């Protein structure tokens, strides 16, 4: 049955479908960057010595660890569970976490929903020194969440310049949030200035 179609046509069909699947991966992400709501997140490099020097930079955010008693919403998460953060989005793009959910909640005006995945759930997470967070009553069930923003690579020609800038000031990530909550890194902001913008393709 299949053998009646010429082999070349069948090979071409398989190749095209597989390439289309790859292209769809890229296009899907480009859509988020192009159309998504922009938010700004202060970023803490996890390994400051290698910032922008190696292949990947690992970044941590305030929302990377969520203390459930301080953030409202559901509180029974297991590893690899999806988690949706409802946050208020200010005019400058900075966000304020409101609550976490198992299912995507409805977002009102000036609100965004960000989708992530629980990487670990623990208790009594130590507070970051110098942060002005209210104390969390023990036990303090907490989640480590991966939002899709934790690893980033910058091309070699930009790496040195960005490292100098980052040493001089505060690094923030400009991210785009799609309608289904998925986020993608759109650019890098140092001291309030957009210093690098991610190309679409």
């Amino acid at each position, binding site marked *: 049955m299949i*053998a009646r179609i010429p082999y070349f046509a069948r*090979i071409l069909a398989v190749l095209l479908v597989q390439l289309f699947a790859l292209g769809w991966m*890229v296009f899907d*992400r480009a859509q988020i960057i192009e159309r998504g709501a922009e938010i700004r997140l202060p970023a803490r490099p996890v390994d400051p010595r290698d910032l922008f020097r190696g292949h990947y930079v690992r970044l941590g955010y305030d929302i990377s660890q969520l203390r459930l008693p301080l953030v409202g919403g559901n509180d029974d998460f297991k590893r690899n569970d999806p988690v949706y953060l409802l946050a208020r989005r200010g005019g400058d793009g900075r966000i304020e976490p409101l609550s976490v959910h198992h299912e995507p909640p409805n977002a009102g005006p000036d609100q965004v929903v960000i989708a992530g995945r629980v990487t670990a759930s623990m208790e009594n997470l130590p507070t970051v020194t110098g942060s002005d967070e209210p104390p969390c009553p023990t036990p303090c069930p907490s989640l480590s969440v991966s939002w899709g923003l934790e690893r*980033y690579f910058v091309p070699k020609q930009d790496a040195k310049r960005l490292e100098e800038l980052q040493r001089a000031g505060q690094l923030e990530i400009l991210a785009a949030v799609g309608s289904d909550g998925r986020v993608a890194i759109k650019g890098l902001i140092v001291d309030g200035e957009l210093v690098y913008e991610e190309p679409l393709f």
Partner: protein
Amino acid sequence: MIDMFDGLYRRRLLRDLPGWREKGWVTSDGATAIRAELAAAPAAIRAPAIIAFLGAVLLAFAAMTFVAANWNDIARPLRFGLLAGAMAAAYLVAWWLMRRGHELFADAAVLVGTAAYGAAIMLVAQIYHIEARFPDGVALWGFGALLAAWLLESRTALMLAIAILTYWSGLETAEYGWRLHWPFLFAWVAFIAVIETGWRSDARSWPTARHLIVLSGLIWDAVTLISLANQGRQIDLAVLSLAVPLLAFGWALAWLLLAARSPRLNAYGAVLCPYALAGLLATLFLLQFADDGSYLWPWWIGVTFTLALASAALSLAASRRGLLGKGDAAAIGLVALAALPAALLQKWSGGTANDVTILVLWAVPILLAAVWSAAMGQQRRHRASLTIGLIAFGAEVVYLYFETFGTLLDTALFFLLGGLLLMALAALLYRLHRRLAVAAGDGGQTGAARP
């Protein structure tokens, strides 16, 4: 490169010629003519061709190493293009090889193309910082491989697709929160559809495909059952012990398929039967070790009995065609209940039951089931059943020995007696197998019943 085999053929031909002449297949003039022709052909290996080929391989490696070393400095669209190019090259080579008639090599090239597709998925995600769910990427690869298997009638792509998609389902169940990953069933039906409807009939006759499909289904069953039995820190042994009647049902189903009129269904039955039987006895054996759980689900006894009855009913239907006897139908019904005695005692006694009693309540059904399997194998000329039964019997006896005498005897004495017992057991089982297998081997393979 394929011409390299000509030398072997030539030497073989020269060796065979005298024999053909003796048998009168070739006249003496003919043999002389053949020898003359062979002598005229260049017998030496073409060195320049081989050197050129090795040079090409080195260049290819140089190109790959260069790309890998400077991967991150290449512009992103170009990186995507390189990956696409690698895939296209592999598939093009497959087409070219198929045109030359080298089906097996073409199949290997399709495998390379499909593997390149998987690598491309991973690398594209890395290039563009796509942080999606890992199982989704695996599924994208697996279904792409399945498409290649279907359209190109590629055996290697089908093997890859079955392996990847089974792993996908296991991953979703074990790590990503699925209790019963039913989307896998669509993939499983697709496997069957690919070989039974898409492929040409001579490609379809590849028996390994059906083995892989049945195995993949059984693996999914096992993973799903364990997932359903998982209650956080405890295991619901009621759900886990359902594996026994389920596999008994599978065995009965296999015989029903064997009794069907369609040869394709027969083929699936022939594959399922030994796996179901082996799984059944293995599960009974392994359940003896499960003691960190309780029997929680309230309906498990009823479901066990229902499945046992269903197994017996299916076997009766198969016995109508003469493949099984009514005794076998009754036997499988009882074997389906084999996990119950020990389980019921453990449940009703609330964990206070005597260890020896539990041991006996497991051992007796297992030994009886093993003996039945061996006897049925001998009677029905089904060698697999015979072997499985004997192995299960031997394993259980060894286990019983360890459990009963392990604590009583001094270590050295324990090992001495154990060694002697093992050797005696091995000798006994070997002679039993020889005797029964000889009897089972007369007159054919599976299923032919003797009145």
